[in-house]
């Protein structure tokens, strides 16, 4: 793996070019693929050091697949991923493992992503052992330090995941991700499962860590309001492609692509004066509804939307 410090701030932390991935959706009796669906169809973007790129899209848009491809949790069919100056897709297993300490991931449901049979201290300590070779008292001290950084008491280390709330456990997941001192964290719907009041706490923690350590986030979410407030740059995905990208305020203020426009206009707005009076609603209901837009077909779907023939 090349020395990452030499790359300098001129080169982006992450550069993704024309990334493609399809999944087999149907096999014949011999296990040969007979049908494939394109999940990601030529996605390119760059993520500078210390910044956040938000990827938004609806179910089946391919946004989670992009996150997995970047960390090579799934193998892309084509394209290139350059992370910290290294070509991720051509790395050997060993080099890949070394690179992965610099790039971590947080998932939506910490109850599913953390091992229920491991103490929280073991969960956070594992990457310390694997990546830094820390053992014994030094490791324990570092675990406590990490817990403190995400706002959890030291005693947390001796408890099991089921003893915590979702918000607390997501903090544990963040502490584990921080343990290997990464430059990049891929956050796949990190607060979607949390209560509104707790969401803001976890997002604030991520913002503080970014300011403190210069972390970069690839922030994947279906929630446009969230991405707007959190990400510097936003990319909108639909059908495996990025249809529009740009600074959040620009993209949400002046959407150009028809899909982005539809998405932005569909966001419920938390402001007074949005609810129309009963009389207006009655009048509106008597006007025949405009024909519905064609059903957006999820790229990866077992659903038969239209005529089965």
């Amino acid at each position, binding site marked *: 793996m090349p020395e990452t410090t030499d790359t300098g701030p001129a080169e982006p932390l992450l550069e993704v070019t024309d990334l493609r991935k399809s999944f087999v959706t149907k096999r014949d009796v011999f296990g040969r693929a007979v049908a494939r669906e394109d999940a990601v169809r030529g996605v390119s973007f760059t993520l500078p050091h210390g910044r956040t790129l938000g990827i938004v899209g609806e179910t089946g848009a391919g946004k989670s697949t992009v996150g997995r491809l970047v960390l090579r949790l799934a193998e892309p069919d084509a394209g290139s991923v350059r992370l910290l100056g290294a070509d991720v897709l051509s790395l050997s297993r060993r080099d890949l493992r070394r690179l992965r300490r610099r790039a971590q991931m947080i998932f939506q449901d910490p109850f599913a992503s953390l091992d229920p049979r491991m103490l929280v201290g073991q969960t956070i300590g594992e990457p310390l052992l694997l990546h830094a070779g820390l053992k014994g008292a030094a490791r324990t001290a570092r675990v406590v330090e990490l817990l403190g950084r995400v706002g959890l008491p030291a005693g947390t280390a001796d408890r099991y995941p089921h003893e915590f709330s979702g918000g607390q456990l997501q903090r544990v997941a963040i502490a584990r991700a921080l343990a290997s001192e990464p430059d990049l964290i891929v956050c796949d719907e990190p607060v979607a499962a949390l209560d*509104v009041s*707790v969401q803001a706490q976890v997002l604030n923690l991520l*913002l503080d860590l970014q300011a403190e350590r210069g972390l970069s986030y690839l922030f994947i979410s279906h929630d446009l309001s969230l991405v707007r407030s*959190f990400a510097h740059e936003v990319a909108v995905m639909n059908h495996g492609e990025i249809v529009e990208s740009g600074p959040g*305020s620009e993209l949400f203020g002046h959407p150009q692509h028809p899909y982005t426009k539809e998405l932005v206009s569909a966001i419920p707005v*938390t*402001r007074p*004066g949005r609810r129309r009076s009963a009389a207006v609603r*009655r009048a509106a209901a008597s006007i025949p509804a405009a024909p519905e837009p064609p059903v957006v077909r999820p790229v990866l779907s077992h659903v038969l939307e239209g005529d089965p023939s």
Partner: protein
Amino acid sequence: MAVDATAAPGGAPNVPGRAPLLEVDGLTVEFRSGAGRVRVVDDVRFTLDRGRTLGLVGESGSGKTVTSLAVMGLLPPRSSWVEGSVRLDGQELVDAAGAELTDLRGRDIGMIFQEPRRSLNPAFTVGEQIAEIARRHLGLSRKDAWDRAVEMLDTVNIADAARRARHYPHEFSGGMCQRVMLAGALVCRPKLLIADEPTTALDVTVQARMLRLMNELQAEFDLGILFITHDLGVVAEMADDVAVMYAGELVEQAPVDDLLSRPEHPYTAGLLGSSPDVQGHVERLRSIPGSVPAVGAWPAGCRFHTRCEHARPGTCDTDPVALADGGPGRRARCVRSGELHLEGVGVDA
């Protein structure tokens, strides 16, 4: 039953002095917990009129779903205790005998849930499932019930309804499943629709279509809607009035625009502050510290005082706080609401 549920939906406005469509008073729910009981809903009181929507807002564990299940009479009788009064068009539901209640709630109350696919039976076509409701509650023949089901699928904008009625739930997308649920909930032309997070699992564009449809059908059927959600954006678009729940009790009630622009309870203000939509791009979000207390571990005094930045020791942590009237249609459960100037949301960003 005295009520003719097959009558055409009337657009009759509420006559002054007539009983509200839904009147909930002193509703308290306890669940069995080990050898004892634990209270999950405490003295909830609200009313809902025909043609209007009440948004019931709260986080997980606030008791909003249990409140709706109690209204619907869906709580398990052996392990739960419901006290207080729930009246639909003046008729008491809490003490109604089992069979009578089943008839009443099936016909006069419709309900839709967060996960439509799980609420539908995968082994029957959607037409059969809707027709079954019509046969059971309206006593229609097999043929008439089927026709009614197809008609309802058409009403909820399922294209080619006659053919689609013969399809199974797995052949529909999530958004379409929710519209199928809505067709089933409305097939008996109920007066009240309870919608428990009906769009939470849907994509945002699908959600927008579903909300539009609910508004249209509300006007067409003169429905009262009890809309349960955690999303203040959805509340702003859908609700005429809002009731905010925290730790089993109502903490604030107000007409929607009043609640958003001038919240009177610090919890409501905190929820508005945590909402990313309200803030645009920011360095930090405002947040409420701590987390929702678990059922049975509610703090003494004001139940929110442990997380409240305005809490005053000796005042807020001693005695339970009453839900006090404050202006037209408004109530708040905060001893300091008169003196606090809480930040709300303006009309424009």
